[in-house]
């Protein structure tokens, strides 16, 4: 893990934001707030780590937010359905988790197969499945909300809120995902091939890399991570609806790019993505800390900070390449 301008830039932005937060409100650095921010970054965070692989291999996935909503929906339906038979216990919850994770892998497979086998642009495939997943969850919920049985939710709740002291499970899961993601990107054959494909897929093909398979795997990995983040998301809210996970895809992609991974592929930076995710959550948190002119302007301030965060990492092209 050699730091370079692309990871240092966002890191500086992150530190600047932390300093700003601490100046605005002394409670900002309180453990409770830090736990909150980190735990809620976990969903987008895990998804963004998966997205880093997809983007590095030259792909894109717009469907992740809808996919999360859909997976949360079917997991809840599965748990509610298993409840009468199995009762209010971890067995039922494990079924729900299994449905979310396997469903995620299957959804990722669907995206990946359409992209690699039917050879359709990732943008179009995932725009299509984005609509499909979102519609399906709305339809399953009959336009309303799918809710987990109250007893089950009470049992399941500690998966989001519990943990080891201040370090709750989502934080642990996010950290593990980030470490694993970084390791895979840097030290595994898969990661190497992902970068090679994103950099030049003809070269990869000439090097006996099964380009289609690796691409497919990136989407499945992303699906798996969407499934895992759903496993953490369901106990937080205990429900899913047509408005769950709206715009998560944009946030995840933004985090990846803020982190220094190029949108055109070839260069994956998992640590950068983690920093990008934290920057995005901190912006929200800080906006809540400060009393601003008008809440209508939140989006504008957010926009300005996102752009500023990236100014710091923009490629300092040498004078040669002007």
């Amino acid at each position: 893990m050699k730091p370079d301008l692309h990871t240092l830039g966002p890191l500086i932005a992150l530190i600047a934001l932390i300093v700003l937060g601490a100046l605005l409100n002394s409670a900002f650095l309180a453990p409770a707030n830090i736990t909150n921010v980190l735990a809620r970054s976990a969903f987008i965070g895990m998804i963004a780590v998966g997205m880093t692989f997809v983007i590095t291999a030259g792909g894109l996935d717009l469907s992740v937010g809808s996919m999360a909503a859909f997976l949360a929906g079917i997991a809840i339906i599965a748990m509610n359905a298993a409840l009468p038979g199995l009762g209010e216990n971890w067995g039922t919850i494990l079924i729900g988790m299994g449905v979310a994770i396997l469903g995620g892998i299957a959804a990722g497979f669907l995206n990946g197969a359409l992209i690699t086998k039917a050879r359709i642009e990732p943008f179009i495939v995932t725009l299509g499945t984005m609509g499909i997943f979102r519609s399906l969850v709305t339809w399953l919920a009959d336009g309303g909300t799918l809710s987990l049985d109250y007893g089950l939710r009470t049992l399941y709740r500690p998966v989001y809120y519990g943990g080891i002291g201040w370090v709750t499970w989502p934080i642990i899961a996010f950290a593990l995902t980030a470490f694993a993601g970084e390791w895979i990107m840097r030290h595994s054959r898969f990661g190497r091939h992902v970068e090679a494909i994103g950099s030049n897929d003809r070269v990869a093909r000439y090097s006996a890399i099964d380009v289609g398979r690796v691409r497919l795997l990136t989407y499945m990995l992303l699906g798996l991570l969407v499934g895992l983040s759903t496993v953490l998301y369901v106990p937080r809210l205990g429900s899913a609806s047509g408005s769950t996970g709206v715009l998560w895809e944009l946030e995840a992609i933004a985090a990846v790019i803020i982190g220094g991974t190029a949108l055109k592929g070839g260069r994956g930076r998992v640590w950068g993505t983690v920093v990008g995710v934290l920057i995005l959550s901190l912006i929200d948190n800080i906006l809540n800390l400060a009393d601003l002119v008008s809440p209508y302007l939140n989006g504008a301030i957010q926009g300005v900070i996102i752009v500023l965060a990236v100014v710091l990492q923009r490629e300092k092209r040498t004078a040669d390449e002007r």
Partner: protein
Amino acid sequence: QDAEKKIIGVSIPSATHGFMGGLNWHAQDSIERLGETYPQLEFVLSTAGDAASQVSDIEDMMATRNIDALVVLPFESEPLTAPVAAVKDAGKFVTVVDRGLSQDGIEDLYVAGDNTAFGRVAGEYFSENLEPGSKVVVLRGIPTTLDNERVEAFQAALEGSEIEILDMEHGNWNRDDAFTVMQDFLSKYPEIDAVWAADDDMAIGVLEAISAAGRSEEMWVIGGAGMKQIVERIMNNDPQLPVNVTYPPALISSAIEMTALNFVSNAPMAGRYIIGSQLITPENAEQFYYPDSPF
């Protein structure tokens, strides 16, 4: 520094459509007013685009702003229930607005409109004022529980009246979407006698589509929530807009005010306040006209 200072957190959905815009305006308006009247009160307002960020907002208010009371209009009932219960368990005063939580007895104060009545009042007007055999189309909102409640009540009120609902589509409480849907309804059905648009923003789009098709004489439109432009036209006896059904965005003001009163007066506030949906008619329209509100 000031031990007596009380902090009231207000968490509402962001202004993504006309009604919520009105609600946002009323919330800011009453916070400003109350802040001036009662210097010992401080308000924290946050707006959220979805249920998850609303939960985050509430967590932030608890963790960093140390609020004494929470006024919340839940984006959705289910996901907000546990987090709001946690606020209550921390000993804070909780006011829930409009959308009830999925567990009873959490909140101290409940101020709400009545979605069932909103659909029913409209439905009753239809069944009373249309001939049997008349044909209507319906524009629904964004798919949500409250939209379901409204539409179900509307359908229930039409039962037995022999009025036919030709079609229902989601106009998403959005003018442009409603315009598109209505244009297509007009192409599809040569005969439409009335339209229920379930929201005044949609009603605007619907009216435009009808007038562009030159079929204004054929049908009237009932919207809902009392947008000022619509109320104005009712006052002027517009034949196309005979009535409207209230669902006042100002209910957030009542909620904030009552919550404030809990701290500044000696009378503890508690209970449920349901603001029923009323029919705005040309006769009473003046009462419902707020020229300053953006909605």
